[in-house]
């Protein structure tokens, strides 16, 4: 057994066991921290597959931004930890369903026999990031622009969902204050009209 085989089995067993404990844990903070562990180990796995750029993107974007967002939301909302009562039945059904699905996938993988598909080990003269950038800015440039637009839409949507304007708040609106005139505020009436 060479060192890469040992590393593969170590990393995959950490990912599998921590994802199993993620789906049965009750505490959401523990679940988010387990997800960080899973993403780090997957980044190691992607490094073994010569995908250096995506491995570092996974750590920087996912662990650095998305999971921190998860932790912010968990700490922002004071979620009561409830003991669920009907978890046993759901556990049984979910284990049966996922075992059936895994058996099907396993049969597909070994029916097609991917085991002899070793990589061609062609050492390219440019690095992985350069190759991805070359594809991204020539063939897939339209998809790249659409991705940028999707991120913009996500920002606007996330703000618009949570933006609440209270009707009866005492907050001053400078625009309305400027538009007020003397006539809209002041009314002169004669004394004998009273």
């Amino acid at each position, binding site marked *: 057994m060479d060192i890469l085989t040992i590393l593969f089995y170590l990393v995959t067993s950490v990912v599998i066991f921590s994802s199993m404990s993620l789906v049965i844990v009750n505490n959401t903070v523990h679940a988010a921290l387990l997800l960080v562990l899973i993403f780090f180990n997957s980044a190691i796995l992607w490094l073994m597959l010569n995908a250096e750029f995506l491995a570092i993107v996974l750590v920087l974007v996912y662990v650095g931004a998305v999971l921190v967002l998860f932790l912010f939301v968990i700490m922002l909302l004071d979620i009561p930890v409830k003991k669920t009562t009907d978890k046993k039945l759901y556990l049984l059904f979910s284990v049966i369903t996922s075992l059936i699905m895994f058996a099907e996938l396993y049969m597909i993988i070994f029916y097609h026999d991917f085991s002899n598909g070793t990589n061609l080990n062609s050492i390219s003269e440019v690095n992985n990031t350069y190759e991805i950038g070359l*594809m991204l800015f020539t063939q897939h440039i339209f998809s790249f622009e659409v991705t940028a637009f999707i991120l913009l839409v996500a920002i606007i949507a996330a703000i618009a969902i949570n933006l609440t304007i209270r009707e009866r708040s005492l907050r001053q609106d400078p625009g309305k204050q400027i538009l007020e005139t003397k006539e809209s505020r002041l009314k002169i009436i004669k004394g004998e009209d009273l």
Partner: protein
Amino acid sequence: MITMSHYLVFSALLFCISIAGIFINRKNILLLLMSIELMLLSVNTNFIVFSHFSDDITGQVFVFFILAVAAAESAIGLAIIVSLFRIRNSLEINLINKLKG
């Protein structure tokens, strides 16, 4: 020697575990979103494995797009969860029945 089917079996196992997670966590919508992230991770691993063993960089470009879209999706999902918690004061999925669908 690690072959292609080792990686494929690993990613299939991860996908099935996250499906079980969606079944189990009916009381907490945040854990459900985390299971979806796990599913996306296993699909991305599959893409990278095929890209590595067939020596084609297009799979990795696709993973880049999936990562960007998944980040946008989780941002909007978390915003919906925050505003839902503000209205209902709970994250249980079987209580979300306002639309009576």
